[in-house]
């Protein structure tokens, strides 16, 4: 199978859905022909589809999401780009109070087919306002779906499904993933929202990891082979809906779980997954649930500081060894 980058996989998904459905359009800051997005995901799309459907906006995050929401409830399928996930704070009313709730408040009279793409994550030394992992915010708002693809294959398949979904989908990408390559078939495929993927099978311990942390978990698993520890890596791929079944089945098999996420530990995604396991699979556990997450700090700038707060192979291995 051919290999393409995560960035190209996303672009292919956008392009194919725009070709398939005239109601799909893109809206965001500097996504058009002059810049093609801060991470170049929309390269070539304005040239192909025109400036009306690949729409550059003023720096107005709240209006980007509000306008996209207004378009979504009147027959369009907007894909909005927020340049950095951190900036979603500026649009939080439109995301959490409007897009997420209009269908419910209006008794099902409308639907909000809207995708909000944004890059998350630390590791490129751009400090506290461009590095956060805020997935727990969105996971906590009924009405939103949350996708976090870790590979080019998942990125393309999940983005296509998200665009076709009739609900607002927070589509969270990781800025370190854009250049990575992986197999992506030439032919059409989609991936359902709410289907976790076992990225690596193993008998000894379940590691549930999200987004970029999937790759760190897989690297840790490779290192542990030498020590005779077989790690199963489960990638939920979407946090809402969350595929509890695959996580619980894995825990039933291994009896041990380490949860690795890049968001802050307190009230984070790892807490929710731990609670699910505690509620639904406690008696299958042979060891306490372990969590590896960022400490409760903003993301610092200096490489030495930043690397300290991001979970890595070493911290993951340490956590695994504590339960195996």
């Amino acid at each position, binding site marked *: 199978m051919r290999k393409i980058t995560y960035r190209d996989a996303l672009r292919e998904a956008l392009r194919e859905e725009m070709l398939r459905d005239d109601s799909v*359009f893109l809206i965001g800051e500097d996504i058009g022909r002059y810049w093609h997005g801060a991470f170049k995901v929309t390269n070539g799309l304005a040239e192909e589809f025109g400036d*009306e*459907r690949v729409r550059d*906006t*003023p720096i*107005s995050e*709240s*209006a980007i*999401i*509000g*306008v*996209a*929401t*207004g*378009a*979504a*409830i*009147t*027959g*369009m399928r907007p894909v909005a780009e927020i340049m950095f996930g951190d900036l979603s704070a500026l649009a939080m*009313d*439109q995301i959490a*109070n*409007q897009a997420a709730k*209009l*269908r*419910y*408040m*209006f*008794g*099902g*009279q*409308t*639907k*909000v087919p809207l995708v909000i793409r944004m890059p998350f994550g630390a590791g490129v030394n751009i400090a506290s306002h461009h590095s956060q992992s805020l997935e727990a915010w969105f996971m906590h708002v*009924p*009405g939103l*779906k949350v996708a976090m693809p870790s590979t080019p294959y998942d990125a393309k398949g999940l983005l296509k499904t998200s665009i076709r979904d*009739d*609900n607002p989908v927070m589509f969270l990408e990781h800025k370190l993933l854009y250049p990575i390559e992986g197999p992506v078939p030439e032919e059409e495929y989609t991936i359902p929202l709410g289907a976790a993927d076992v990225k690596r099978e193993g008998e000894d311990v379940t590691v549930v990891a999200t987004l970029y942390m999937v790759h760190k978990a897989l690297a840790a698993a490779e290192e542990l082979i030498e020590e005779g520890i077989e790690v199963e890596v489960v990638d939920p791929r979407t946090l809402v809906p969350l595929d509890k079944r695959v996580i619980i089945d894995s825990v039933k098999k291994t009896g041990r779980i380490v949860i690795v996420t890049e968001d802050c530990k307190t009230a984070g995604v790892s807490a929710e997954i731990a609670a699910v396991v505690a509620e639904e699979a406690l008696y299958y556990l042979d060891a306490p649930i372990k969590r590896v997450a960022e400490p409760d700090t903003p993301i610092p700038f200096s490489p030495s500081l930043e690397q300290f707060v991001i979970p890595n192979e070493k911290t993951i291995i340490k956590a695994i060894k504590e339960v195996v």
Partner: protein
Amino acid sequence: MMPEKERMIEMFRNMLEIRCFEEKAFELFGQNLVPGTLHLYVGQEAVAVGVCVNLGKEDYITSTHRGHGHCIAKGARLDRIMAEILGKKTGYCQGKGGSMHIADFSVGMLGATAIVGAGIPIAAGAGLSIKLRGTDQVVACFFGEGASNQGTFHEGINMAAVWKLPVVFVCENNLYAMGTRQSRVMAIENVADRAAAYGIPGVAVDGNDVLAVYEAAREAVKRAREGKGPTLMECKTYRHKGHSRFDPATYRPKEEVEEWLKRDPIRRFRARLSEIGVLTEEEANKIQQEVLAKVEEAVKFAMESPYPAPEESLEHVYAREGED
């Protein structure tokens, strides 16, 4: 140019419907039959009616927490609005929204948001949708002078202006944002002056003169429909009641209230219609009786309707596949 005779009579009837509906709702509230709160439109009827009479069923409006008048003026049914206010299953939102979140998508009423100013970018989004779909629809976006101090006002109107979207921004300046008088929070007298900052027309009109509102809205709607972009209309008006349920509005000088009550938009229009020979006293009384009977019927419908089943609280969070 004045509207045709029949149209003016319809406008009068429509204003009376809003007035009688609101007074009835207030009466029911006093009898403890309305859960939660009420923000009455009494006194501002000329704005909703003067604007909406220029719109067709296929045109859109967005509304606010003080939204009953907008719904009625856009053609929504009194009985289903009343049922919603009472929390009944037969309400427009099946009891999920209540007084502050009424929507009727079947008449282009895209719903009321209770976050002040949040509807402005949503209305712009409906305008963008119209532009992308290539129809000749128009959006009227209602909000108060208080909302004009929100960031969404700036972001939404700027975007609509730069993209020449078919939106009429209707600021209902009733002088008070809850208890805060305009002069305490704005250094300008006319919200309409802010239009200059966006390069669009701004017009301030007597919002208690339905013909003045009609005329200004006619121009603005025409301009929008012709693809010339948005207008900011400011309608100077006054709410006869307090901000919400128990507010006695003691922050307003007695003389000011009396002065504005003399400018009651319905009494003025009725006198005008009589003066120009469009409506006799007898005909006006007959209309009033018909409206009162219609409101009574709406109350009967709402009172006799069942409450939603408790489990329905779990529905409409997400649109399911294939669902409208």
